């Protein structure tokens, strides 16, 4: 038997492995940057939904959605540790860096998944909890374990996982689904391919080295660029749907049109990029703009809704 000197832990036979992972390493497993997008879009769904929710319950809803998304990120890192170790973008993640063991990440991801779904169900409602559970399953199993390594359409279908949060936020308030929440879902869903393929273009070698069939590696740069433009146009069109369906103002519609035209403009820049361009500046610009686009669209929807509410209340008082 092996005993730690200050009687704090008893190990197994042989040299015990003592973790040097800090709380920050575990936080990194949650993919905080992706989580920030999830928090933001879920918040937008929560605000835009008709009806009232207690602010603290609303906070718990956002927290559970964020933790659930983070848990699916941890499960993704557990499964993808082998390819993460090879790709420059992911080689410093906690598992390939040797800070956290894959089985520790698996346990962490499963525990957080269960806690986030159960607490969301108990504190808010079970439809929202069911959607969160489905989102985690979709990202960890359908996308990570199945689609990612088997088809160049991986992120088109897998993008649904990242698009569910505003729908969950909506379900937290209303207890149901509606055409408006489906539009919110479609904005992120149709945005994902152009966003990810822009990244895949300038990280093509990385994906090629680990055998992940991303669109540029499998179908070539030309096809990818054309599909980027198609998805940018679709994103721009769905971006103005909130106005067409009557749950956002004309002001929002004008803003979404300008942003959509910007998205299409940058995608055309990628289309015009010469084949074999080493620096891939237009692809990097599109990638950066795509992030700004999504934040701007959801911000505009929230601001537009808040202004409409204030206007309505002021009219009611007068």
């Amino acid at each position: 038997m092996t005993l730690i000197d200050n009687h704090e832990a008893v190990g197994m036979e042989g040299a015990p492995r003592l973790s040097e992972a800090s709380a920050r390493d575990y936080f990194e497993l949650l993919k905080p940057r992706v989580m920030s997008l999830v928090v933001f879009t879920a918040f937008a769904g929560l605000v835009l939904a008709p009806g009232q929710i207690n602010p603290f319950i609303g906070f718990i809803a956002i927290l559970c959605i964020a933790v659930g998304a983070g848990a699916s990120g941890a499960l993704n890192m557990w499964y993808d540790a082998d390819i993460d170790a090879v790709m420059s973008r992911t080689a410093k993640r906690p598992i390939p860096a040797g800070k956290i063991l894959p089985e520790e990440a698996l346990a962490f991801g499963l525990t957080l998944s269960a806690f986030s779904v159960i607490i969301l169900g108990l504190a808010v409602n079970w439809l929202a909890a069911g959607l969160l559970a489905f989102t985690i399953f979709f990202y960890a199993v359908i996308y990570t374990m199945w689609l990612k390594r088997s088809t160049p359409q991986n992120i088109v279908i897998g993008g649904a996982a990242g698009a569910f949060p505003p729908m969950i936020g909506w379900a937290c308030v209303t207890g149901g689904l509606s055409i408006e929440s489906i539009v919110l879902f479609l904005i992120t869903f149709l945005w994902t391919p152009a966003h990810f393929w822009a990244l895949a273009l300038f990280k093509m070698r990385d994906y090629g080295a680990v055998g992940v069939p991303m669109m540029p590696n499998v179908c070539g740069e030309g096809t990818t660029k054309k599909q980027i433009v198609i998805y940018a146009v679709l994103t721009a069109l769905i971006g103005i749907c909130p106005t067409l369906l009557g749950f956002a103002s004309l002001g929002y519609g004008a803003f979404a049109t300008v942003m959509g035209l910007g998205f299409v403009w940058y995608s055309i820049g990628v289309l015009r990029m010469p084949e074999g361009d080493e620096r891939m500046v237009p692809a990097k610009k599109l990638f950066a703009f795509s992030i700004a686009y999504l934040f701007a669209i959801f911000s505009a929807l929230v601001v537009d809704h808040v202004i409409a509410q204030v206007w309505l209340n002021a009219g009611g008082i007068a």
Partner: protein
Amino acid sequence: METVKLSDSQRKSRRSRNIALGLVLAGLVALFYVVTLIKFGNGMVH
């Protein structure tokens, strides 16, 4: 009986994990307390 000495970095990282876990547990207690007040508070008043 063989003893194992923790290195400084092992001790430091374990402390960081313990503090984080403690904060999470305290947060869960507070969360369930407030949710209970919100969910049952109205019913108890009436």
